[in-house]
């Protein structure tokens, strides 16, 4: 479904990821892990079109999307939930969600993903009138995911969804990822909390200083002694 081939992205001459190649098949949950500064966020930004790669290609459903404008990549079916969520803070929860389905305005059932969003995160339904900025960190993350789902993605990319959230809600969000996959979507998730995330992921890539250090099935990676020592603290 998605193939990132030999992609290098640099910021003002500083290479953040270098010749990274990853493949994601339809219906998978893929984890991209690694330490701070390993290039995880740059990788998803490059796929989302927020950054342009210096070289390499990104192909989605057989078509090149690297270098394409970010809003057009969203329109093709890749939803990206950035690390800082980027909600519209002074707009209501409802308006944030309705903006997610902006591309489908004029369609009678433009808001049909709302049913899934409310099933995943019932508390959003209780807070429809509230301004997004008044939500807790966890609720804001839920809203960001909800807004992304409203764009009807085939691939959902989450960058550090557990950041700044209380542990109980982290579980809720990881559970939601499983439900989202069951609803027919593919998920790419960037996380530092590897242990929990390996439990829900099918496969994982570990990045180190901008390169793919290791890749494989989540269960194999979890069992790898080096990974257990370096990343899982076991």
């Amino acid at each position, binding site marked *: 479904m998605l193939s990132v081939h030999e992609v290098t992205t640099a910021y003002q001459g500083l290479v953040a990821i270098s010749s990274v190649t990853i493949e994601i098949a339809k219906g998978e949950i893929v984890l991209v892990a690694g330490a701070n500064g390993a290039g995880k966020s740059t990788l998803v930004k490059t796929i989302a*079109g*927020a950054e342009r790669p210096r070289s390499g290609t990104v192909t989605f459903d057989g078509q090149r999307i690297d270098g394409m*404008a*970010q*809003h*057009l990549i*969203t*329109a093709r079916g890749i*939803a*990206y*939930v*950035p690390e800082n969520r*980027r*909600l*519209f*803070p*002074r*707009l209501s929860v409802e*308006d944030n969600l*309705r*903006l*997610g389905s*902006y*591309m489908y*305005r004029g369609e009678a059932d433009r808001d049909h993903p709302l049913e899934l969003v409310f099933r995943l995160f019932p508390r959003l339904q209780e807070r429809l009138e509230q301004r997004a900025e008044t939500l807790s960190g966890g609720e804001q993350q839920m809203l960001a995911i909800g*807004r*992304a789902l*409203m*764009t009807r993605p085939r691939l959902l990319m989450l960058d550090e969804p557990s950041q700044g959230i209380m542990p109980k809600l982290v579980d809720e969000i990881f559970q939601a990822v499983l439900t989202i996959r069951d609803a027919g979507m593919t998920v790419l998730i960037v996380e530092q909390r590897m242990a929990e995330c390996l439990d829900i992921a099918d496969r994982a890539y570990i990045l180190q200083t901008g390169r793919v250090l290791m890749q494989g099935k989540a269960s194999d990676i979890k069992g790898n002694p080096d990974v257990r020592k370096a990343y899982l603290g076991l």
Partner: protein
Amino acid sequence: MTTATIIQSLASGLLMGLLYGLIAVGLALIFGLMDVTNFAHGEFLMLAMYISFFLFAFFAIDPLLAAPLVAAAMFVFGAVIYLVVVRFAMRAKTNIGMVQIFTTFGLAILMRGLAQYFFTPDYRSITQSWLGGKTISLGGVFLPVPQLVGALVSIAAFGALYFFIKKTDFGRALEATREDAGAVALVGIDKNKVFALGWGLGGALVGLAGAIMAMFFYIYPDVGASFALIAYVTVALGGFGSVFGAFAGGIIVGLVEASTALLLPPSLKSVGIYAVYLLVVFIRPRGLFGSI
């Protein structure tokens, strides 16, 4: 000074204030949307007045009927100015604020120069419009009909703008872009389209004001300058970027101007406006309704 003169003055001030609000709102809209001050706003007004004048002179279309046409033409003009000029100014890597100021300021000088060249510096006026020169008496207060219609148009335009922003999808996209222009791509919105729409709306609103004002003001290449200055004061008074603030600010400016004219010699009628402005800037720098 009798009560009647006071009421008369305040009524005229209110009408003028509603027009000031209509002129200023486009400026506030664009500033709120993308933090760009359009220093050519007065020249947008000037162009709208000339379009109205030429529609009257060549096609005998009354300014009142021409108002929607002028607004439509100015919508296109505003959107085109964004797409071919401002969009590129915003790509500046350094000193982006300065680049934007000098771009729109340069645009103002260019428009004024072109107007002088093509339209000549002569003062023009629309002498025989339907409403021009007519007055109406409401309970002993005499109101000039063009200004009264202008005030009603202004209220209607604000109502329509409010509805557009709060109730439509485009309006919601406008609000979202105002909140975080970098995030709208996440929901598939092209921010450039929204910016162009904002400039178009700003142009249409000042176009409406220009069409009305062509009924009772002389039309000449520099006409925008004095109104633009008042518009900047209005926007700063109401709170930068606040559309409602621009409306309220316009009314305040109109009333203050009329009151000053009552108390001071006519040549000092602007003193009150700038005095109030300075006071607001000292006491409440974000403006009366600003939320920055």
